[in-house]
């Protein structure tokens, strides 16, 4: 009896904390292992590093929780960074319209993904894989594979600035995206519909949800988030780099899965990105060889997904 209640307690804590418990584990271990880990400069540094991925991962969360998948996000992000830079530097556009236009292109590409997947019934994995190459090609065509430099200070502020000289601007943008994403997912019909479709598309349709429209909107929203991430990335790198976002798709997907998809939320996705960022940081601080770091990070993804599956299993067994 005692044992059983302990087990239930454990299940409950796991259910509530999810991947945050992994983060706590890393924090506790590293607090003892390395004195530099728990300093504000180190923490802010890690937050800066994960800001771009997290902004994009907010959008990717919607897609994955809605039962879809998107491999094209890295390229959409890069495209937005390069487009905004090109419009400003090469065509003399003011900053804001240039950014809005670049983001709009990302939304359009996301919508095209959505329409192909819902109306043409193409598997999301393959559709977005194809789209990744299309966008990659467009980037090379438009930039001729040359980085676009000479961005104005105000643009760079988004990626390199600090609020009151302490708080990094990209981290503030990241928190804003997480907050808005969280509200959208938990407090709107759109968010509810996404969760419902991700869980049971047939039942969602029979419950009168406009499944196709919601799915297109979800890919469009993803396009919006990753385009914003791409602009922040360009600002961080001080240039529109045609090859900068190649790894972003997979990192964003990793963040979502580390965060957990069983009872997924945008806040959990941020936890996933934090686990990734702090793990990276911890390995750096411990002077682990960069090649071995990759191995370790890969293992983290697998462990996190196993952990999520285990959590799901516990939740499914929870009889009352």
């Amino acid at each position, binding site marked *: 009896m005692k044992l059983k209640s302990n087990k239930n307690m454990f299940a409950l804590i796991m259910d509530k904390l999810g991947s945050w418990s992994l983060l706590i584990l890393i924090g506790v271990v590293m607090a003892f292992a390395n004195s530099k880990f728990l300093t504000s400069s180190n923490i802010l540094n890690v937050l800066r590093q994960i800001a771009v991925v997290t902004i994009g991962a907010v959008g990717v969360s919607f897609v994955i929780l809605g039962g879809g998948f998107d491999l094209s996000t890295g390229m959409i992000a890069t495209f937005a960074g390069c487009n905004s830079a090109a419009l400003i530097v090469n065509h003399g556009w003011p900053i804001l319209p240039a950014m809005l236009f670049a983001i709009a292109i990302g939304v359009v590409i996301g919508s095209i993904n959505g329409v192909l997947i819902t109306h043409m019934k193409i598997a999301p994995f393959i559709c977005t894989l194809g789209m990744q190459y299309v966008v990659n090609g467009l980037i090379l065509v438009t930039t001729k594979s040359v980085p676009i430099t000479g961005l104005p200070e105000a643009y760079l502020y988004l990626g390199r600035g600090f609020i009151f000289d302490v708080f990094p601007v990209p981290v503030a943008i990241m928190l804003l995206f997480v907050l808005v994403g969280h509200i959208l997912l938990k407090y*709107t019909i759109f968010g509810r519909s996404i969760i419902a479709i991700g869980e049971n598309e047939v039942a969602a349709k*029979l419950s009168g949800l406009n499944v196709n429209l919601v799915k297109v909107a979800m890919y469009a929203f993803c396009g919006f988030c990753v385009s914003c991430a791409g602009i922040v990335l360009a600002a961080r790198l001080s240039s529109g780099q045609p090859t900068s976002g190649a790894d972003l798709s997979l990192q964003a997907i990793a963040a979502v899965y580390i965060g957990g998809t069983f009872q997924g939320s945008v806040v959990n996705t941020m936890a996933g990105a934090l686990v990734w960022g702090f793990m990276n940081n911890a390995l750096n601080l411990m002077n682990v060889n960069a090649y071995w770091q990759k191995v370790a990070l890969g293992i983290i993804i697998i462990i996190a997904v196993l952990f999520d599956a285990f959590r799901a299993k516990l939740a499914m067994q929870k009889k009352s």
Partner: protein
Amino acid sequence: MENILKLTQINKSFPGVKALSDVNLTVKKGEVHALVGENGAGKSTLMKIISGAYKKDSGTVWFDGKEIENTTPKQSEMMGISIIYQELNLIERISVAENVFIGRYPMKHGMVQWKKMYQDAQKLFDEYELKMDAHSLVRSLTMAQKQMVEIIKAVSINAKIIIMDEPTSSLSGKETESLFRIIRKLKSRGVAVVFITHRLDEIFEICDHMTVLRDGHYVGERDIKDITKDEMITMMIGRELTQQYPERTNPIGEVTLAVKNITDGSSRVKNVSFEVHKGEVLGFYGLVGAGRTETMRMIFGVDPLAGGEIFINGEKHVIRSPRDAIHFGMGFVTENRRDEGLFLRSSVRVNTVMVALRKILKKGFINYRIEADVAKKYVDMLHTATPSIDQKTMFLSGGNQQKVVLSKWLFSDSDIIIFDEPTRGIDVGARREIYEIINALVADGKTVVMISSDMEEIMGVSDRILVMYEGTIAGEIQKEDFSQDLITKYAVGERSVRV
């Protein structure tokens, strides 16, 4: 003649349901044996026990002189028991011959003898006078041809008994004839055939002997030459109504839903027309595959309408999706509530509000307090047994899951509610509650359409019954004329009137 298969005192229970009690079945060598009973009589369960797909709780199975116990479907197939399910078990992308010899390809030095395989398969087809090329892909065959391939596969494994589960349900008259020719051929070679069917004429045409099951019980067996059709029907259904159905006295009002000549474009739903009134429970009876669910899915906008019109409260509407149907006040409690009705990983509260999310908005955002109040209200109203409104619906019993599905339609203010087998898999106590809820709905002026394959239930709950047979409405029966005999006659195509 010698017995090939003998089952005695077979019992099998599933959680909450006793599927078989003391069932016997004796099949002789070279006999065509009909296994008959209504939907849910236990025929499929019995078949699965013979194949080894289910484990019996008690009883004995003798096959070919030996008692068999705990066999797997694969082992029993190798011993000579072949089962041909309604859902055929062939691989579409490969050739007929490969399907016949799958898992038993002729080998030589570790290599498949393709040529020998095709020759052997062709020899079998020729032997049974089937015009079929062993090289053709299963994909290109008709349903009837696929069935023949299954039979030939059974023959090639030297099956001593072949059990066919409603083999004629998807065949035309001509195809049925050629199936019977094959069955006679099998019989002449000493292979026993167990023939499951609803069609009484077919029993007279092809079978020697019959065993009747009813509600999981063994009713009896007869030689076909000694029995009349009426006696057969009496054996299938002959019992008094035992369950209690709550009384209902509410008035019946004007027509709310009218359907005119709807067709699905194939042969599953053909020119179905009916009307149903405010405050009425209209029952839809029919055998499995008669087209009842398909009809309702079209009315609810799940599947496209190939022709026909739908009127709601006298106005003609085009319904393209469930969303449209809901907009016009319809609700659909589907047969398969776990896959189509519920979000199992989500809580009672999330499921309750799913159809009418708009109603829990406050200033444009979802308000969790309103959601909780709504969920509590329906849990109290329908007496849903759940520890809390946050319980995931996968942990609820069938009856309580059904109540959650119902509450989502009640909260969305549906006026016309379609129930497809609302009490399937639900225990007796909870059934009565569902009937009481249905009564409360019609008393409240709502319209209820209920599909049920349970004869007692449909007679106990409906004000009027429509019986479907092969995609058409075979008959309409008013409450004062309800009789099991009449319903069965319509349902098996013995009798039909244009309505």
